[in-house]
């Protein structure tokens, strides 16, 4: 039986996580992400899962990693300053290859910014927020249904690629109510992390399978003994500063995402085939853009829309193909021009790219985007 619910985006993220098998949540309240935490506080104890309110976001990130090391699908959620606080421990999760999901319900910054209003200022932070090199997977939903679906996808990617996966939602989506169709359990894919099948005494915790560059992960308490560290390490998981081992470690962290880039990248297009003008936007902004594109089409303007669903890896190859056929790409975003930099990189000069930024805490209206289309038509 397919169920239908009428949820807010934040609630749908929590429900999607539960549908993916999440059984551990550690968090600290912050607007506009708190509802994710509150939903988990209500649901997890009812299902025998673990919920804990920590003393801050640093601790929440750390405890979430702890939950995953002990074998549970784990999640935390935050916004703005809280996401900044999580960065150091997020880095440990990349380094030690700990699967988890980090939800960022974006609000304006820097610093306390505008807690109660929408923004998309964390695009680059999602990619480069913690220090050091690593691959990044970050999804951006644009409807409440997609919040639910992406929560499942994010857990699957975290488990498959053994690393943190980010979801970049925003204040408007987080608090907007929409219909969600809940697929029956068993009708959607659920991925579990690769478990070691070797003799416990012979287990080499970071020996990656050459097939996928991903080592199997044992949980604490399952009879395996291993060492988790944020230091660069060898295959045995022990600290190493030897040049070859350091390089091997870091390169694999980056490569394990790069090589599956095509499997991970997701995007959605609308009326793109004959489009001379392309609007390229993500998240809630895409809703306004799509409305504007539809309106412009009705008036005979050859315009299409491209929506990255994964902000990272960025759909650059796909955008390049579109750039070859179009005259201009307009990139509206709620920041001073972050994703537009990636678009410029992706098009390799094949087309003109113009950014359109809004940072007053409001969302672009379809009319504003329509005007931008008209200006270049």
């Amino acid at each position, binding site marked *: 039986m397919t169920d239908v619910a009428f949820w807010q985006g934040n609630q749908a993220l929590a429900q999607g996580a539960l549908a993916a098998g999440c059984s*551990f949540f*550690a968090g600290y309240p912050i607007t506009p992400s708190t509802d994710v935490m509150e939903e988990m506080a209500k649901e997890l*104890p*009812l299902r*025998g899962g*673990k919920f*804990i309110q*920590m*003393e*801050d976001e*640093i*601790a*929440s990130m*750390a*405890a*979430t*990693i*702890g*939950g995953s*090391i*002990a*074998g*549970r699908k*784990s999640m935390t959620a935050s916004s703005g300053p809280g996401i900044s606080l999580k960065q*150091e*421990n997020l880095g*440990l999760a990349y380094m030690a290859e700990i699967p988890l999901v980090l939800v960022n319900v974006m609000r304006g910054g820097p610093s306390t910014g505008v807690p109660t209003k929408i923004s998309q200022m964390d695009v680059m932070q999602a990619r480069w927020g913690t220090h050091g090199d690593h691959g990044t997977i970050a999804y951006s939903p644009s409807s409440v249904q997609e919040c639910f679906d992406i929560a499942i996808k994010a857990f699957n990617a975290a488990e498959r690629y053994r690393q943190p996966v980010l979801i970049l939602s925003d204040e408007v989506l987080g608090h907007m109510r929409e219909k969600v169709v809940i697929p029956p359990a068993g009708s959607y894919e659920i991925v579990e992390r690769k478990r070691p099948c070797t003799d*416990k005494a012979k287990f080499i915790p970071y020996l990656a399978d050459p097939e996928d560059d991903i080592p199997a992960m044992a*949980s*604490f*308490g399952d*009879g*395996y*003994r*291993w*060492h*988790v*560290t*944020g*230091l660069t390490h060898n295959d045995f998981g*022990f*600290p190493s500063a030897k040049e070859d081992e350091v390089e091997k470690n870091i390169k694999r962290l980056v490569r394990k995402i790069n090589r599956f880039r095509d499997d991970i990248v997701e995007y959605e297009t609308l009326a793109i085939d004959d489009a001379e003008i392309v609007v390229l936007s993500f998240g809630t902004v895409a809703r306004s853009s799509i409305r504007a594109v539809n309106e412009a089409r009705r008036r005979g303007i050859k315009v299409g829309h491209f929506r990255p669903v994964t902000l990272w890896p960025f759909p650059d190859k796909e955008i390049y193909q579109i750039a070859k056929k179009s005259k201009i790409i307009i990139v509206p975003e709620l920041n001073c021009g972050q994703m537009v930099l990636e678009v410029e990189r992706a098009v390799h000069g094949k087309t003109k790219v113009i950014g359109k930024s809004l940072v007053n805490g409001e969302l672009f209206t379809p009319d504003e985007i329509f005007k931008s289309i008209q200006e270049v038509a």
Partner: protein
Amino acid sequence: MPNPEVLKWLRTQFFPHMWCPGCGHGVILHAMLRAFVDLDMKPEETVIASGIGCSSRMPGYINACTVHSTHGRSLAYATGIKMARPELTVVDVMGDGDCSAIGGNHFIHACRRNIDITAIVMNNNIYGMTGGQASPTTPHGAIATTAPYGVIDSSFDLCRLAEGAGATFIARSTIANPKQCEKLIVDGIKHKGFSVIEIISSCHTQFGRRNKFRTPIDNLNRIKDASVPFAKAQGMSKEELAGKYVTGEFVNIQSPEYTEQYSRLVDRLKGGSR
């Protein structure tokens, strides 16, 4: 030579260890492993978490489930692990800087929650790893690289801090009394709830050298001379106790443990009552 039971707990392939010869932290490692042997603990069911510092390199040498986390945050990692799998025995080892400077917030909240983790604070009164900067436990007037004219801050009494925050087992020993360290660690692990065992350690390299205690032996003697058993301290004035290390068990009370309370909550919900 440690006894063979203790050796079984070590990743001996990494010896010699990274600590300076004569560093106090090794005494604590040995006492802790003897406590594990006394308690007949199983390495596969034992988690040792640490932060960053000379002290925090300890888990790397222990053949169990070990986490070398980030500076000051180990108790938050340990809390996640314990919460996810309460059946595991979780021990957290920290330096004084780790525990009470950058990790102070996590420390007081772990005490408050009374989660069943044994925290061992290896207090050498200095930041050893980074080269001798002042820590929150560096004594008033002592020299550190960031206090070249003497520390003007007041220092923390970690045991009293833990008591104020609600830890239910609190004790202190020193590396001059390894037998007592072992006994207190045994009692701390057996205790159901958050246990804090502060062990006064020594860093002749970064603390002693600048403060007229050049050698490991000078430091050991300094610690010995400053140690006062809890019972004796009861009859001493505040002035007499200044600069002393009061040792022994200070707090040992039964109070609901966090993960047990959580599982009772889950059971209650299963029964249909909220």
